[in-house]
């Protein structure tokens, strides 16, 4: 399998390899023909993805991460570090910048790209100090009337000894409560994996969006399968059962909007993905910007209060 491609993308990977070869030898007519084949193949592969294929795309090793988006559409960005109590958590980034000239606080989970960076960023799984840093920066934004953008992409909060000792549960809980009370507009976007409470801890927005191939769930499909069938390899079935795709969650009213991605997923074209994301963020922010602080809090509480099915 070609590096960086998923199994089901293999026919496309082969064509891309061929295109590179043809381009190198300057076979113009052939290049054009293969380019057409690539577009057709993309439409075929990505037209009707299964929930599990979306999980794989959400976890795609070449998928853009929050700092890749920040680089593309947040100007004057300054990263702010640390929770002022224990440490700086590189699994969660936060800072101040501008989107189309408007001052924003931006908070997001950050996975690493190569092995060294993955380890440094703990695969995007924050410790309590990460959540506390996120809240610190969001409260800073609220004090100065700045809107907040959060970008969610984590397998979950880190399950470790230090995390438990420092109150992982309390850190997430406090974010959920205090984020709900901030008197500024909050737009949250699940850009990759929305892994349970560790994702939700920065996703209590007035508007909650998901990119087309992002997933959002209460437990990983593997975790669900191992509880349900004592077989963690049956993630394909549990991904379907849990209804974790953007379209399904939009139907449930759990997310407000689905942000389109370039054909074949955000990893095919980072610039285009960033462009589409920026447009969605601004449109959703503008829909909120006329509201008072107390309207925003009331609206946010009401948004989550309305979610649930019972009789």
């Amino acid at each position, binding site marked *: 399998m070609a590096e960086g491609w998923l199994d089901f993308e293999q026919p496309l990977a082969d064509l891309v390899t061929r295109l590179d070869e043809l381009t190198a030898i300057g076979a113009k007519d052939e290049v054009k023909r293969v380019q057409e084949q690539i577009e057709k193949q993309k439409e075929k592969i990505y037209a009707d993805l299964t929930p599990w294929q979306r999980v794989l795309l959400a976890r795609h090793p070449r998928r853009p991460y929050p700092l890749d988006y920040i680089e593309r559409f947040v100007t004057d960005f300054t990263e702010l570090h640390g929770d002022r109590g224990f440490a700086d958590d590189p699994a969660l980034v936060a800072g101040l910048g501008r989107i189309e000239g408007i001052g924003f606080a931006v908070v997001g989970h950050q996975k690493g790209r190569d092995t060294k960076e993955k380890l440094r960023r703990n695969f995007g799984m924050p410790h309590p100090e990460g959540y506390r840093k996120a809240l610190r920066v969001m409260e800073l934004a609220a004090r100065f009337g700045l809107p907040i953008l959060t970008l969610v992409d984590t397998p979950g*909060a880190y*399950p470790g000894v230090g995390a438990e000792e420092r109150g992982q549960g309390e850190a997430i809980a406090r974010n959920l409560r205090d984020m709900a009370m901030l008197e500024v507009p909050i737009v949250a976007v699940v850009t990759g994996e929305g892994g349970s*409470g560790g994702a939700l801890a920065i996703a209590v927005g007035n508007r909650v969006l998901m990119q087309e191939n992002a997933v959002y769930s209460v437990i990983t499909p593997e975790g669900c399968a191992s509880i349900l069938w004592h077989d963690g390899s049956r993630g394909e079935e549990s991904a379907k059962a849990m209804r974790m795709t953007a379209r399904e969650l939009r139907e449930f009213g759990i997310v407000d909007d689905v942000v389109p991605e370039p054909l074949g997923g955000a990893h095919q074209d980072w610039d285009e993905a960033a462009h589409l994301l920026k447009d969605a963020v601004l449109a959703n922010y503008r829909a909120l910007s006329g509201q008072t602080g107390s309207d925003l809090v009331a609206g946010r509480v009401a948004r989550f209060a309305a979610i649930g099915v019972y009789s």
Partner: protein
Amino acid sequence: MPTPARPVGRSQTPDGMWYRCNSCGEILYRKTLESNFFICTRCGYHFRINPDRYIQILLDEGRIEELDADMTPADPLQFPEYDRQLKKSQEKTGRKDGLVYGRGEMGGIPVILAVMDFGFVGGSMGSVVGEKIARAIRLARAERRPLLIVATSGGARMQEGAYSLMQMAKTSAELGLLRNERVPYIAIPVDPCTGGVTASFAMLGDVIISEPGALIGFAGRRTIEGTIGEKLPEGFQTAEFCRKHGTLDAVVPRRDLRDTLIRILSILWPVTQATTSY
């Protein structure tokens, strides 16, 4: 000592006249245990008890005016086996879902009490539990009654997918409003309290009190062991561990729980300050 209104569910404690202590193995006569708050007379182990017993232990005359008892879970995802699991838990506990809440008094102070039932689908939080907690919080705010929640849970209810996850935000957001109104909330996480409940309302009390030996944590023990690749030390994630690391206020034996709560409430919420609406 009040007597319980209902037998304890099978999964919580064994049936019959005699109970075996999970900790020291001592054989204990049922009546002895009942008169000792379901605490082992030999080693002090706290048996898991159901909501009826907590209501008996905590509220004046063991009396609650229960609300929304008929609220019934749905199966919005048509999730494998969920329907059958719900029926089984409903038969076992005699409840529609795993939470009881209502009005009561403690030492003459009007309060709202909510108690989770670990015997109902593992004490998991789905839409009904989340909605009832949210309503209990709103009621405490509307009537300016202190809120107490006894939380015991395996976490968010997987079978309701993201609906369950969102109950964490729903309940926590309501607690934000209660806090702004300065109505006290005492969280009482008891054995076991993990996952999404620990990461929401169970850890948001103005005061957080637990019982000796209770397991309280975010991630499951086996998950952590799988991640770090080694066995966890004895006593990890117990109430005493949490107190030592500063994540809860006090560990109180069950026989002293009611008196402790009344003592705290009477200082935080002298009756002259309370302006109940009825």
